[in-house]
């Protein structure tokens, strides 16, 4: 089935472009259908509700070098959910049919890139699919033009170009010493003496840190997220940066750096610095989307920190936090879009008392915020708990303490967001504000439900991840 995850979105992309101009609004429906199909088809087999082994001959016949494991499933499902949320938001968020048509096209291209990232086992192919995703994302940022969008996309392009150079240099060095770039060849290269494989590893990691927006390479992320149109922000914050940067780190940790102490220390230090700086930067923002963007930086720090913990539990904790954050952050950006639709602004200084005017947005936003902050019994609590346990198991008590204390800062800035936006007496300026229409409420409600449900059935989720994480 793995090949179909590349070929079906590709066929959908072609189909969407074959539509006559009058039928182009159907392109968003096609993209939504592909995303829904992917989410369901990928999520069912691990739950024991379906078996797609009848499709294995398709994989054998095509013979591309891709394969799925539980880590892939996690990314594929996250991408499906974040993609669906962004397509739902595209209706009210993008004003012209042309913008919506191009958006659907770009989401499909990025989806193929993300699906490729989740299933390749080769460093060069990984790089190619990261680039596919990145190029589609640059354009998603400038979809509605404007100076801010150009500036955000420009920073993203420049830093991405630097990341590409670093990754290509790394690949060249691996080819030089090992003659290949499959993950097994990389593992073999790192086991041999000499500094070149480690120089190459450092270069590739730096590239991934830039793509993932880790400190000190986080400068582009807030500009790109806040300048992009709302549906693009949902998709980018929900899945794109995590897939192109963090997922690749998870894949390498799982397959290549299993017992490598130097990389574990790099993940610990970079993860801790990122989560602390991201949290404090989020605390100082008054623009809601920028606060959410810096919050993403901080949460990505948690995921990377987990990779420095005990090998097996660390990967599981990172994977679970990856999923939780994809769901909750997509939803918070959908909430931000709902507020922007009704108020015309995203500055929290001009908000207040919206809870009574927009109760569903306020409620779902509270669920996602509290989950990311790590409050039980929501999904985010369990992933953060696992991260702390994974660090504790390898004796990294200081980093575990940093993770716990930064959780309090996370709670602080999310409570501040809730208070400034939803609590208090409604301002006279917003007397006529009402709750948004159904198309923006649907993703918010569905993603909140997933956050609560994953928290409540956590033992089942954990056993699924532990079953196939290694």
């Amino acid at each position, binding site marked *: 089935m793995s090949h179909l995850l590349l070929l079906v979105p590709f066929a959908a992309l072609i189909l969407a472009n074959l539509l006559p101009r009058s039928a182009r609004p159907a392109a968003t429906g096609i993209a939504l259908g592909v995303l829904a199909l992917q989410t369901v088809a990928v999520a069912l087999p691990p739950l024991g509700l379906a078996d797609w082994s009848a499709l294995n001959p398709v994989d054998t016949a095509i013979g591309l070098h891709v394969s799925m494991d539980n880590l892939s499933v996690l990314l594929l499902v996250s991408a499906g959910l974040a993609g669906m949320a962004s397509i739902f938001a595209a209706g009210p968020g993008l004003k012209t*049919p042309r913008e919506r048509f191009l958006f659907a*096209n*770009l989401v499909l291209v990025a989806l193929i*890139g993300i699906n490729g990232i989740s299933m390749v086992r080769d460093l*060069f*192919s990984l790089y190619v699919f990261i680039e*596919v995703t990145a190029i*589609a994302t640059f*354009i998603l940022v400038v979809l509605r033009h404007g100076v801010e969008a150009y500036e955000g996309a420009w920073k993203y392009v420049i830093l991405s170009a630097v990341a590409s150079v670093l990754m290509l240099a790394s690949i060249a060095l691996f080819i030089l010493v090992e003659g290949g770039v499959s993950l097994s060849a990389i593992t073999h290269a790192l086991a041999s003496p000499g500094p070149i494989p480690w120089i190459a590893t450092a270069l590739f990691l730096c590239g991934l840190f830039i793509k993932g927006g880790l400190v000190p390479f986080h400068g582009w992320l807030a500009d790109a997220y806040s300048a992009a149109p709302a549906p693009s922000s949902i998709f980018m914050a929900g899945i794109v940066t995590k897939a192109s940067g963090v997922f690749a780190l998870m894949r390498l940790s799982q397959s290549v750096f299993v017992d490598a102490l130097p990389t574990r220390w790099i993940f610990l230090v970079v993860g801790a610095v990122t989560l602390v700086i991201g949290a404090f930067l989020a605390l100082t923002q008054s623009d809601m989307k920028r606060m959410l963007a810096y919050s993403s930086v901080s949460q990505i720090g948690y995921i990377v920190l987990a990779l420095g913990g005990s090998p097996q539990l660390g990967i599981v904790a990172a994977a679970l936090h990856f999923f939780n954050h994809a769901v909750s952050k997509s939803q918070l950006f959908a909430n931000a879009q709902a507020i922007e639709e009704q108020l015309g602004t995203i500055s929290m200084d001009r908000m207040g008392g919206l809870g009574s005017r927009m109760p569903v947005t306020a409620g779902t936003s509270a669920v996602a915020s509290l989950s990311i902050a790590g409050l039980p019994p929501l999904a985010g609590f369990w992933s953060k708990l696992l991260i702390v346990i994974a660090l504790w198991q390898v004796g990294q008590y200081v980093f575990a303490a940093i993770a716990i204390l930064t959780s309090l800062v996370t709670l602080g800035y999310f409570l501040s967001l809730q208070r400034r936006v939803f609590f208090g007496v409604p301002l006279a300026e917003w007397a006529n504000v009402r709750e948004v229409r159904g198309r923006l409420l649907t993703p918010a409600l569905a993603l909140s439900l997933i956050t609560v449900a994953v928290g409540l059935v956590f033992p089942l989720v954990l056993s699924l991840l532990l079953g196939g994480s290694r």
Partner: protein
Amino acid sequence: MTLMTILLVLLVLAALWASMTTLLLRATIALALASAMLAVVMYALGATIAAVLELSVCAGLISVVFVSVISLTQRKPFKDYVVRRMSRLTRFWPLPLVLIAAGVALTFVRAPIQVALPAAGAEEDVRVVLWNLRQLDLFGQILILLAGVIGVLVLFKREGKDDN
């Protein structure tokens, strides 16, 4: 001074010109020159297929794409151009110096790196590499081209009346 050294120096100069000039058209020409010289260096090192691809794609095709995009832009007034050139030179004058200093410093470094370069002609048949070994990457390249086309549509195509 060998031919290779001359080529490498010219390559660096062309790359510097590409990054320092304020005119897009000149930057494109400089980039094409740098690519052409890189192709010669690759050929001299025995990577013939890479050299041909570098020359045809990077020096040829990419330059055509750049020039066609530049033809869609509007030139700035000469006064603005002079101001921008001066500010650019003030900001980036250390760049060539840093590059030269780094080059000189590297010649003194005795890196403990001993890697045997593959013998000339030892590379696999390009047909096998492209169609058997790297099919997946070719698929990725097609997607990158598609994303680029959508990018051009987003950035440069004006919205028509019937689109609304």
